[in-house]
């Protein structure tokens, strides 16, 4: 029985070493701007947009193939967006035109 458990653990470790899991990234909205102006992730990764501001935001992207709209995001709220396709999405806030972040998805 202990031998089987050890063998299963070894197999699990080997599989986890050979596979790559999807990563979760975070972009914070603070003082009417994004925490970074650009970010590069891999296909399948997710980005959580965290509104740490004291005003409402409306994060969205109309880049073809990578469209999303988080609608009105109240202070303290957060939303997660998956990025499966490769490309570069321009993410903006409809309330604050100066806010812009470029999300590049590539392998």
């Amino acid at each position, binding site marked *: 029985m202990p031998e089987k458990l050890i063998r299963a653990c070894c197999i699990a470790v080997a599989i986890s070493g050979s596979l790559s899991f999807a990563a979760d990234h975070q972009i914070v909205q603070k003082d*009417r701007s994004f925490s970074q102006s650009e970010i590069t992730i891999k296909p399948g990764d997710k980005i959580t947009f965290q509104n740490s501001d004291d*005003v*409402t*935001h*409306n994060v*969205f992207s*109309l880049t073809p193939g990578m469209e999303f*709209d988080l*609608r*009105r995001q109240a202070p303290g709220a957060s939303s997660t967006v998956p990025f499966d396709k490769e490309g570069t999405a321009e993410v*903006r806030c*409809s*309330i*604050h*035109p*100066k806010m812009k972040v470029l999300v590049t998805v590539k392998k």
Partner: protein
Amino acid sequence: MKRLTLAQRMYLTLVPLACMGLIISVITARSLRDNATPLIRAQKLKELALTSLSLLITQDDATKTMMLDPDNPTSNMRKIKAYDENQKVIQNIKALSQSREVRNTIDQMSELDAKVLRDIDTSVLEAMGDGKTDKARQLYFGTYEVQRAKYEAYIHRLVEISEGEAKTATAHLKSSNAISLRNILGSLLAGLLIVTACLAYFAKAITKRMYSVVSRLNQEHMAAQDSTALITKASRSLSEGVSSTSTAIQQIDSSVLTFAFRLKKNDDHAIAARASSAKAVQNADHASEAISRLVEATREAQRSSDEVLSIIKVMNEISFKTNLLALNASIEAARAGVAGAGFAVVADEVRNLARSSADAAQQTADLVQASVQKTKQGHQISEYAAQALADTISEAHLIHGVIDEIASNSRLQNENIKEITDSLTYIGSIGQKSAHEAEKTHQVAETLRNRSHTVEEIVEELVALVGTSA
């Protein structure tokens, strides 16, 4: 030093002129472009200012739409795009402008947008985002539009500045263009005069040479026409000659066939004559042998006659001695008297017999002598005949050899005649080909004559083009 051709002289003259014209054109174009640059810049400035105004109106329109429908993402994006475009336009105006007044206005616009207008706009949008539509409307129509009017006034100011610059640039362009036009016209006129002079010179030179060439061409054409006529005549004569030759060859062929037939008969005769002469030679050889034997026989007969003569001589001696004995006997008988009378008679008789024997021997000797004489003559005749026959045989051998050679030559002649007949057949086929070629030559000569007429027309056209004298 090698003389330059006309084309080389043209190139050496016109290429520098063309280069000079090209340089003048480039300088003129650059000058015209430089003249127009201030006006273009002013027009561009006005266009960008109006674009900025249009984008400002688009942003306002999008904001109003968002106030009516806050969840419409298209309006959001339209406003964002208009905002981004306007920022680019403002940057372009700043980069384009060389006027301090424009730059000051742009700086004032940017300051108003960054410090006032954008904050109010953000507040309006945030109020809408928070669902406070009334507050948003109050901010927009109460505060934002006042500041927006100032912003719009700056844009109008930019338009006015651009129009003023355009007016100044237009006046400058007119005066500059007038100067440029004068320079262009002067250059064109000078170039036109130089090119016209060059062209006139080269046209005169070309015409002079063309006239010389056309004159020579005309002379050569006349000579070619004469040659063509001669070729036509010669080809006709050739055709007729070939036809006559063909007829003659046919006649020769017929004659040769007849000659061959006769030669064949001669050959047959020669073969027969060779056989006959061979037989004659053989017969002559036989006759020669017979004559030889005849000569030998006459020689033997002569020898026998000589022996007979010797015997007759002996007989004569015997008769003489017998007669002498009879005479002695008669004398002795006479001396004996009567007793010897009978003996005397016998002695007389013996003497008579001796006389008769001597006569007979003499007659025989005469006959033998005559026979010997005839035998000698016969021997001489036979020797002469043998010599004549030997000559005849020699001649017959010679004739046989000649006839044999004639027969051989006749056979060779037959073979030669066959070769001649084959050659005549070949010549006949060549004659037919030659007749065909002569006919083609005649047709070519006719074509050449027609072409010559065409060349004559071309020469007349060239003469009309270059005139009768340079």
